């Protein structure tokens, strides 16, 4: 057992470090670490510039084929890059969906002509994409979506609504999943497309969240026209396309932005008005020990996953562990942090609050972390069914044509 890189990994890490040192500022040299969950929209330009720098130096798409600007690297190299980059203050949260989910789907299904038009632009930070999957009545049950695509000659006409679409407000293009047939069971009636977000009939409305942030949008489609050439996969095979997209999500979720264990530990060393430090309180000490155990367990689980990747394996559903644990941990840390100083924990004024109200903010956005990217409940289903081999739940809509599936209690 050791924690060392293989010679090839060490060489790669050296290259990554040289690039980051020359092009980015370490977090330790930045004044405030207390950032919100996502960068604000005024950081979009910075994100585009950073994306271009990564592309110019060959780090934008480590796993992709060379002919599309990738380096045909191994998953372990992507992990090494992420590890090194996480120590730097670089803009995140703008291109992850574009490059992590939408482009891999395009590479699997789009025509050469479309790839030539979009892949280099996205890689270079000139094109932002969003993923138009979830709907008000189709979240965890994605295949229950209702946005209609109706064929008219060599075009498709879209009517319906999407929701929880990150970056739709700044996106140039979108990956869209629609229903093209309601008379067959739900998975069999779906078809996928991509579209220009500036098409007539597309309306984007930001959603205000509990935290006051606007990280998601609703997207409305009214008689939006898409050429058939922008269809991805066959008619009725949209579910397979969506699975391609979502299989790439595994590499990108699990890490949660926000105050972590070390930040909370530091908070516990700040005395209250009576000079008492929470870290000396036995009740807090027990909580800190428990959080340490959890944090350490996640760290070394990541090392085990890296070892498997280093030996050429692929990330499995085991990655669900980090998602389930980290979201709940963030919520617990935030609640404990607010409790440390009594009534003052309610105060959100940055100047009156330790660490500028960071934990108060986290308290408000943590609930969303347990939902986005697969709810706690869905992640537990994934572990139970794919890892432990337990049988799937009974489904009342199995084999039933979509238009016969109940959507409300019977009257």
């Amino acid at each position, binding site marked *: *057992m050791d924690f060392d890189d293989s010679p090839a990994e060490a060489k790669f890490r050296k290259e990554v470090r040289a690039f980051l040192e020359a092009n980015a500022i370490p977090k330790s040299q930045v004044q405030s670490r207390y950032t919100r969950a996502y960068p604000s929209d005024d950081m979009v330009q910075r994100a585009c510039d950073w994306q271009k720098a990564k592309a110019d130096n060959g780090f934008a798409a480590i796993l992709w084929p060379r002919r599309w600007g990738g380096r045909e690297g191994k998953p372990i190299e992507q992990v090494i890059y992420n590890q090194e980059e996480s120590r730097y203050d670089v803009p995140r949260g703008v291109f992850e969906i574009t490059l992590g989910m939408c482009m891999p789907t395009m590479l699997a299904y789009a025509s050469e002509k479309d790839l030539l038009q979009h892949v280099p632009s996205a890689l270079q930070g000139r094109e932002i994409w969003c993923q138009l999957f979830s709907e008000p009545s189709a979240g965890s049950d994605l295949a229950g979506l209702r946005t209609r695509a109706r064929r008219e000659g060599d075009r498709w006409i879209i009517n319906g609504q999407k929701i929880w679409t990150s970056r739709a407000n700044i996106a140039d293009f979108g990956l869209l999943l629609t229903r093209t047939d309601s008379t067959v069971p739900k998975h069999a009636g779906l078809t996928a497309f991509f579209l220009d977000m500036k098409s007539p009939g597309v309306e984007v409305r930001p959603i205000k969240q509990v935290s006051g942030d606007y990280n998601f949008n609703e997207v409305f489609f009214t008689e939006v026209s898409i050429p058939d050439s922008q269809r991805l996969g066959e008619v009725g095979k949209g579910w397979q396309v969506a699975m391609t997209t979502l299989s790439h999500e595994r590499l990108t979720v699990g890490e949660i932005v926000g105050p972590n264990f070390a930040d909370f530990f530091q908070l516990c060393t700040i005395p209250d008005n009576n000079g008492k430090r929470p870290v000396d309180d036995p009740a807090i000490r027990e909580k800190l020990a428990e959080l340490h155990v959890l944090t350490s367990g996640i760290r*070394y689980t990541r*090392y085990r996953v890296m070892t498997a990747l280093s030996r050429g394996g692929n990330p499995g559903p085991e990655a669900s*562990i980090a998602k389930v644990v980290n979201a709940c941990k963030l919520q617990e840390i935030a609640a404990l942090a607010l409790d440390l100083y009594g009534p003052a924990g309610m105060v959100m004024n940055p100047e009156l609050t330790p660490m500028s109200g960071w934990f108060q903010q986290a308290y408000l956005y943590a609930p969303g972390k347990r939902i986005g990217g697969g709810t706690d*409940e869905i992640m537990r289903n994934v572990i139970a069914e794919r890892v*432990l081999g337990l*049988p*799937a739940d009974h489904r009342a809509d199995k084999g039933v044509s979509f238009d016969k599936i109940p959507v409300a209690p019977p009257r």
Partner: protein
Amino acid sequence: MNFEFSASAMEIGTEARKVLEGRKALAGARQVLNGAAAYDSELWSLVAGLGWQGAALPESDGGWGGNHEALCLIAQEIGRSGAALPFSSSVYCAIPAIQHYGNEAQKKKYLPDLASGKTIGTFCLSEGRGDPQHAQVEAIVVNGLLSGTKWPVPDGTIADLGIVVAKDKNHGGLGLYLVRLDGQSVARKRLDCIDPTREIAHVEFNETPAERLGDASSAAPAMNDLLDRVAVMLAFEQIGGAQACLDMAVEYARNRYAFGRPIGSLQAIKHKLADIYVAIELARSNAYFAAWALSNDAPELAIAAATARVSATDAFHLAAKENIQTHGGFGVTWDADCHLYLRRSEWLALVVGSRRSWKARIMSELTKHPEYVAD
């Protein structure tokens, strides 16, 4: 990144599993539960023949030149099997105590027989209620003779040799002493234990000959250091036990039908079992780090051992109780095997000190070494 056991260690683990399954170790434990024997002595001889007791000892001390990695995976299999063996007392406690704190003559004298399983050793620390880390030790050695009372002593009537913590009248302070437990001056009584397949005993010493471990002048060894080493091995046993519980629960949930469907298709069961899986994998990862620290004599041993211990204790506790819950009424019968693991989980959870005491050890390490506080 090479954060995985060596292929040879894993092979030994797989082999150990086959041996214990072939020998039906749990059935042997049930014999002990029903009072037929103090421990599974046939299995003890069998695994001694395979060299398990000496797995981590160099060949010069009677071992087979293995290493801690192999022993960790043997421990995991013993935990999984539920075997009724005094393995932890002899192999995780007595052997490393002599190996690390004994002088050359003592190693030569005691280790080969411990490694071959001919001698069974144990660790005598507690004197009644309280965590061993802060034990108020009253046992005292005067001119080489030990007097005092120890309880609970794991495997106290089974073991031949005790490593006893006692005050030293001549030197002051605490020391570790090698004491034969089978002599006339030792009164031993088996106590009723929450896990009858692992013994605890009440042991009284009355001017019993005691040999100081190490040289007469050597300083008292750090008790915590020895407990850390023990905790790493116990963590692997606990993880093995937890995995056995999860496997039992999954198997039952797949085959038990209610309301016309397997209960494992119900999310109330499914999510419970997913949570156990997560707890076990976190514990396994923490234990891996502890195994690394132990194998490399790393300064991180203290934090790694305490973290692994708390993590594994919690995982086994969760798995053992929820396995019963998954089995429903059948789970609380004497005939179902679930209770064997419930009992064992608590035995292992307490034998080197409470959960609280190990959490306190985590915090003292984190406070001493701010660099350990990381996400």
